[in-house]
C-alpha cells in the first residue's frame, strides 16, 4: 500500500466548552480521493482546516505530508492546496491577475508558470475570460478558477471544502474533470461534501454528524454492510403504504420517490412487515441509505412514530393558487428572472431546481409580493402580487434559507411572535400554535433558546412559524440545506402532509435528489425556466431511460445551448 499522506489520531477541536469535532482517526494514502461527508455543522470544515494546518487541533495528532500540523504548520501550509468554502479569490482582480497572484505567493516562477497557467485555464474553459474580473464570473466559473489557483504550485495534496456546493451541474462536471486530471497526476484529494453522489465516487469516505465520526470506509463496503436492509415498495396507494411503514418499528426511515414508489430503510435484523396491496423488493443501497442508517437513532424510539398526521381525502377540484405569466425582473443589465410562466395548484409541490444565481430566490420573492416584476403578471392565492401585495402576504407562508428565527427566544416565544405578527387573534393563539407545532412535529423543541437547538429542529420550527397563520401557499427557499438525510426525509414527509391538506407549495433546492419528492419540477438556469413538468415526463422528453435528475438537467442545459427553443 502507498504511503500515508494524511494520518490523524484522536483529532478533535473545541471552542471553549463546545466541542465541534472529536475522536477523528483517519489515514489517507497517496493518490486516493477521500470524501468527508456530512450535513452543515457536522465539523467537515473544521476537520479540513486542521488538515491544512490553519486551525490548531485541541486534541489528538495529525501528520500531513510527513509534517506535524502542530509543530510545523508553515511547512504544511506551503505544500498543500486548500480551497475554502465560498469564494476565496479577489473579485476585483481579473482571472489572469488572480492566477498570477496565486503563483506569486507560492513562489511559482519561470517559464513553467505561464505554461501551467494557460493549460489550467484551458482545461477549466476559462481561457476566453482571462481579462474578466473574478467577481463577474458565474459561481461555477469562480470555483473552477479557485481550483486552478490551487493547482499552480502542483501540490501533492488538495484539500477542498465543499467545492461543488451550489454549483450548476455543468460546472460541477467540469470541476470533477479537472480533479480527475489532478488525480491521474498522482495528487491526493481530500474534500468535503454534502452530496451523496459525490460520496459514492470516492475511494474512501468518512461520515460525520454533529462532530462525531459515524463511519469510515470505502463506499462499496459501507453499502455492502447495509445490503438487504433497503426496500423499494410499489403499490396503488402510496399513502396507505406510508401509513403502514409509520407503524413498523423496524423501519428507520422511508421516502416517497418520484411519486411512484416508496423507499424504506429497515433496521439490521428486522424484516419489513408485509403491506397489503404492495410489492416490496430489495434495492441496491446508495450512500444516502448508508448515511440514513449511520445516523439512525437507537432502536424503538418512544412515541416518535406519529410524525405524519392522518391524511384527509384530497380536495376534488384543484384550483390554481399560483399563476405567473411571463414574469421578468432586471437588476441593471442583469436579468435575474427572465420570462417565467408557471402555475401551481392546491396540494401540489413544485420544486425549483438550479444552481446558485439561477434566479430561484428572486422568483420566490416576486411571488411573495416582496419584489415587483418588471414585466409580466403573477397572481398568488387570487391576488395580484404587484398591486395587492398586502393581501398576498397575508395568505402565504415563507421559510427562508437562513430560517429567520430569533436565536435568543425559545421555540414557543418564536411561534407566538410570528403568530402575532401575522395577526392571529389572541383567543386563537394557543390553538394555532399547538396545531402548527403538531404539523411540524416539534415535540422535541423544549423551552430552551433556539440557538441551542439542532439544525434539524430549527428547520422544523421555522416551518411551524411559516404555517402558524394557515397560509394557502407555502414558499420554502432551500429549506433542507445543512440538514442530514434522515432529518431531510422527515421534513419532506411533513411537507407532503401539508400538501395533502391542500396547501400549494413551492420549494427550491440544489440537492438534485430531492427532486424526487416533488410533483413537478421547474429547472432554472440564468434566470430562465428551461424545463417544467414531472420528472418522469421530462426524462421521457429527452429519451432518458432512468429519471436521473442530474442527467435531465444536463440534457435541458444542452438543449438550451444548442438553441432548440425555450422550455416546452
Amino acid at each position, binding site marked *: 500500500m502507498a504511503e500515508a499522506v494524511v494520518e490523524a489520531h484522536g483529532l478533535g477541536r473545541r471552542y471553549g466548552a463546545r466541542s465541534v469535532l472529536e475522536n477523528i482517526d483517519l489515514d489517507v494514502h497517496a493518490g486516493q480521493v477521500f470524501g468527508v461527508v456530512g450535513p452543515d455543522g457536522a465539523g467537515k470544515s473544521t476537520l479540513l482546516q486542521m488538515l491544512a494546518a490553519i486551525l490548531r487541533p485541541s486534541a489528538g495528532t495529525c501528520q500531513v505530508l510527513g509534517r506535524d500540523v502542530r509543530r510545523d504548520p508553515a511547512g504544511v501550509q506551503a505544500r498543500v492546496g486548500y480551497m475554502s468554502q465560498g469564494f476565496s479569490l479577489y473579485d476585483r482582480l481579473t482571472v489572469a491577475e488572480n492566477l498570477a497572484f496565486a503563483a506569486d505567493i*507560492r513562489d511559482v516562477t519561470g517559464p513553467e508558470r505561464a505554461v501551467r497557467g494557460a493549460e489550467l485555464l484551458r482545461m477549466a474553459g476559462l481561457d476566453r475570460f482571462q481579462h474578466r474580473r473574478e467577481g463577474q464570473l458565474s459561481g461555477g466559473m469562480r470555483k473552477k478558477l479557485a481550483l486552478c489557483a490551487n493547482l499552480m504550485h502542483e501540490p501533492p495534496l488538495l484539500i477542498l471544502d465543499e467545492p461543488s456546493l451550489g454549483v450548476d451541474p455543468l460546472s460541477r462536471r467540469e470541476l470533477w474533470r479537472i480533479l480527475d486530471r489532478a488525480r491521474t497526476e498522482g495528487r491526493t484529494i481530500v474534500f468535503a461534501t454534502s452530496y451523496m453522489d459525490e460520496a459514492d465516487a470516492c475511494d474512501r469516505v468518512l461520515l460525520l454528524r454533529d462532530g462525531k465520526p459515524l463511519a469510515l470506509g470505502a463506499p462499496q463496503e459501507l453499502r455492502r454492510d447495509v445490503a438487504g436492509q433497503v426496500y423499494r415498495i410499489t403499490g396503488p396507494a402510496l399513502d396507505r403504504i406510508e401509513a403502514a411503514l409509520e407503524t413498523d418499528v423496524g423501519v428507520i426511515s422511508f421516502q416517497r420517490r418520484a411519486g411512484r414508489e416508496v423507499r424504506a430503510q429497515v433496521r439490521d435484523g428486522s424484516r419489513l412487515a408485509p403491506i397489503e396491496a404492495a410489492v416490496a423488493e430489495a434495492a441496491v443501497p446508495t450512500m444516502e441509505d448508508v448515511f440514513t442508517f449511520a445516523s439512525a437513532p437507537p432502536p424503538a424510539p418512544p412515541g416518535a412514530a406519529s410524525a405524519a398526521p392522518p391524511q384527509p381525502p384530497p380536495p376534488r377540484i384543484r384550483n390554481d393558487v399560483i399563476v405567473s405569466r411571463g414574469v421578468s425582473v432586471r437588476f441593471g443589465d442583469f436579468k435575474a428572472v427572465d420570462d417565467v410562466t408557471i402555475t401551481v395548484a392546491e396540494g401540489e409541490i413544485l420544486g425549483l431546481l438550479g444552481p446558485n444565481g439561477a434566479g430561484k430566490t428572486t422568483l420566490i420573492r416576486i411571488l411573495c409580493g416582496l419584489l415587483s416584476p418588471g414585466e409580466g403578471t403573477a397572481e398568488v392565492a387570487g391576488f395580484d402580487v404587484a398591486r395587492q401585495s398586502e393581501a398576498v402576504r397575508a395568505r402565504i407562508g415563507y421559510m427562508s434559507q437562513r430560517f429567520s428565527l430569533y436565536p435568543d427566544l425559545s421555540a414557543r416565544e418564536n411561534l407566538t411572535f410570528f403568530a402575532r405578527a401575522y395577526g392571529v387573534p389572541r383567543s386563537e393563539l394557543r390553538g394555532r400554535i399547538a396545531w402548527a407545532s403538531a404539523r411540524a412535529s416539534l415535540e422535541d423543541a423544549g423551552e430552551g433558546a433556539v440557538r441551542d437547538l439542532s439544525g434539524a429542529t430549527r428547520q422544523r420550527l421555522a416551518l411551524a412559524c411559516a404555517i402558524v397563520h394557515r397560509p394557502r401557499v407555502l414558499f420554502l427557499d432551500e429549506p433542507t440545506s445543512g440538514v442530514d438525510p434522515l432529518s431531510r426525509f422527515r421534513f419532506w414527509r411533513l411537507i407532503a402532509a401539508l400538501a395533502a391538506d391542500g396547501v400549494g407549495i413551492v420549494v427550491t433546492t440544489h440537492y438534485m435528489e430531492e427532486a424526487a419528492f416533488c410533483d413537478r419540477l421547474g429547472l432554472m438556469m440564468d434566470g430562465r425556466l428551461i424545463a417544467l413538468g414531472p420528472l418522469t415526463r421530462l426524462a421521457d422528453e429527452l429519451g432518458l431511460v432512468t429519471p436521473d435528475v442530474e442527467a435531465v438537467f444536463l440534457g435541458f442545459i444542452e438543449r438550451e445551448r444548442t438553441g432548440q427553443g425555450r422550455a416546452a
Partner: protein
Amino acid sequence: MKARRVLAFARKEVLEISRDRFTMGVALLMPLMMLFLFVYGISLDVDRAPLIVVDHDRTAASRELQARFLNSGYFILQAAPEDERSAEHALMRGTARAALFIPPGFSGRLGRGEDAPVQFVVDGTYASTAAILSAYGRAILHAYPEEVRLPLRPEVRVWYNPQLRSRNFIVPGLFAVILMAFPPLLTALAVAREKELGTIAQIYASPLTGSEFIAGKLLPYAVIAYAELLLVVFGGVVWFEVPVRGSVGLLLAVGLLYVLCTVSIGLLVSTLVRTQLAAMLTALIVTLMPAFLFSGFVYPLFTMPPAFQAYASALPTRYFLEFSRGVVLRGAGLGDLWPNVLVLAAYTATVFALATWRFRKRIA
C-alpha cells in the same frame, strides 16, 4: 521575508485599490474635508463677543468708554437698554456674553479724580472664553482714561505666533490628527475585508509569512496615507496661508515615519478583529478619539492630571503633533525635536512587530 512575495502582494493591493474608486475618493477627499471643517469650524480666537451696555451716565466720558470696548474688535454692541433688568435678561438668554454697567455720575467722579466704579459682567458658562473676555475688559478699563502710570511697566511679547492666530496653531495640529484618523481606518478595513470575504483562507494556506503579508499591506496604504499628508500640508500652507518657519522638507520626512506608524496601528487593529464593523469601531476608539482629546491638539496636555498625561504619552499623535507645531510655528529643527522622532521610530517598529506577531496564519 522575501521581497518578491511582498511586492507581489503589494501589487495585488494596488490593483484592488485602484479598482475601488469609492474608497480612493474617500481616502483623498475626507482628509481635506476634515481640514476645512476644522479650520473654519474651530476657532479659539475670541472676538466679536456680543456686549450689552447700560449707560446711566450718558456723557461724553461714558460714551468714550463704550467706544473703547467696541473699537477693540473684541466686542460688538448687542443692545443698550435703559435698565439693568433687561441686561440681565439678555445674559440669561445667552444673546449677550458680557455686560458693561456705567452708573450715574461716572464722568463727574472721574473729573474730580475720585474712584469711578463701573461694573463689567462676563457670562462664565464657557469658562475659557469668559477668562479671555474678562482679561480683555480689564485691559480696556485699565487703559482708560489715559496714561495710567504704573510703577512697573511690563512689556509682553508673544513669540512664534505674534498675531495669536489660532489657525496657525490648529493647522499643524491637524496634520497629526488627520493622519491618525484616516490611514488606520482604511488599513484596518482592508484586512478585515479579506477576513469577511474569505480571501484570507488562500493566504493562510500558502507559504506567504505573516511579516510578508503585513509588509505587503503596509506599503500601498502608506503611499495613500502619504498622499493624504501631502494634500493636507499643501492645503494648510497654500489655502490657509499658515507660515512654515522651519523646514518643509523635514516636516515631510518625519511625516513619512509618522504615516508608517499610523498605518501599522491600523494593521495591528485588523489582526485583532474579524469583521469590518468591528475594525471600524476599534480604529475609531483607539486612534481618532484619543488623537482629538489626548494629543494636545486643542486641550493642552500640561493641564491634565498625571494619569491622563501618561495615557497621552502612550499614543504617538502627541509626538508628531509637537514636532509639527514645532517646525511650523517655531521653526524648530531636528536638533530641538530629535527625541520626538526617536519615539516615533521606536513606536513604529514596535507596532509593526506586534502586528506581525499577532497575525498568525490561523483561523483560531
